[in-house]
């Protein structure tokens, strides 16, 4: 069983968004990807629309696009992933977060229950 914290919102494309604008990928997504070996993060200051490609998570086998779950401005990125991309696997909701947004508008997001039942 994968972990789906109830205090987060989820995109159908497997990103999570917290109340403070932090974005990562879900436990389900990291498990599907397998061992993460590289993360390409956005530049701080970039303005994005919800649904836009904003980052790339690479596993041994594939590169997967990450989509912004909300519109806004990138205000921080997780530099720890540069040296330790495997944090995305080991702590997808904590140390493996990707970036923070100053959110101006959310995309079409689900609550934990809806996301978990869509990916059961």
């Amino acid at each position, binding site marked *: 069983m994968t972990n789906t914290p109830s205090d987060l919102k989820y995109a159908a494309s497997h990103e999570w968004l917290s109340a403070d604008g932090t974005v990562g990928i879900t436990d389900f997504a990291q498990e599907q990807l*397998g*061992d993460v070996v*590289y993360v*390409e993060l956005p530049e701080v200051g970039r303005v994005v629309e919800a649904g836009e490609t904003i980052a790339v998570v690479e*596993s*041994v*086998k*594939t*590169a997967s696009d990450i989509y912004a779950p909300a519109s806004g401005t990138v205000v921080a990125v997780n530099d720890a992933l540069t040296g330790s991309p495997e944090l995305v696997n080991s702590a997808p909701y904590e140390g493996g977060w990707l970036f923070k947004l100053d959110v101006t508008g959310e995309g079409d997001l689900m609550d934990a229950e809806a996301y978990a039942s869509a990916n059961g």
Partner: protein
Amino acid sequence: MTDTPTEPLKRTPLHAAHLRAGARMVPFGGWDMPVQYSGLKAEHEAVRKGAGVFDVSHMGEFRVTGPGALAFLQSVTTNDVSKLKPGRAQYNWLPGVQGGLVDDIYIYMVRDGEYLMVVNASNIAKDWAHLSAHTAGFEVQLTDESDRWGLLAVQGPKAAELLQPHVDVDLSAKKKNAYFAAKLFGFDVMLARTGYTGEDGFEVFVDASEAETVWDKLLGIGLTPAGLGARDTLRLEAGFPLYGHEFSDTIHPLSSTYSWVVKDKAHVGREHISLAPAHKLIGLKLERVPVREGYPVKVAGQVVGHVTSGTSSPTLGHPIAMALVEAAYATAETFEVEVRGKDHPATRMDLPFYKG
């Protein structure tokens, strides 16, 4: 929009066993195949340090028989099949009539006038048509035995040690490319000391109806089930070309470093192979960013080729790639690979990346 009708995916005799083992299944060359079980890196490491087993039953087997079998094989392949002796195996190529390869294959000699040819899964129909079109004038019969055989690849430094107590032959007496009958767990199989991982190991030809039992017994003696994901990272570390990536109907096969597969003899498509290739296959090392098939390869900002296969090497701990570059640049030491619009430095690295 209407969906393009697709053929249902084919299943190997081990399909149910894969599902039982919790494999993640993916479509591959028309087959529903396991890409990984416990995890790609763990499976990769098991084969490098211990032993793993792959289901390669999706590959095709053609039997070539008759007094003209040798002459026929000589005419459709580039390597010298006359060097084969009964009980030996040989890597070989099926050249096309317009350059490129129809397939890269293995030929196993059973006895005079009888050979078994193993072909890539995605090329079975194409190879069959090509071979059938070239039998005229030869006393030879082709039989497609692809559905008859389950094929398991037992690979890794501990392969022989783990198998030995369960077979009725002395494996230490069987050298690389040996091909021989044995009883494995009491089942009649053919074993070949061949493989595609850069490690020692055996390929097990087993009757399709007995494949699942043998697979379960192999897991029972400590072999790690390994999927297509690990098979690909292992073969890439070992510098083995893969059809559809480093070989194709249009890529000149001598772009690879395998010129030894072409011997001086008359064969289909010889006039094309004798021409010097315009591109060469090289190895690249990157510091951090994994590069994938199709990414442009540059020298001083100018595109000179493209990546054919790329991954993050589990054994070496950094990204590696094979790339086809213009022959004039094949000896350059430094390159750039364009990843999502940005150039990343790469250095040439001799193949194979890893030697077991």
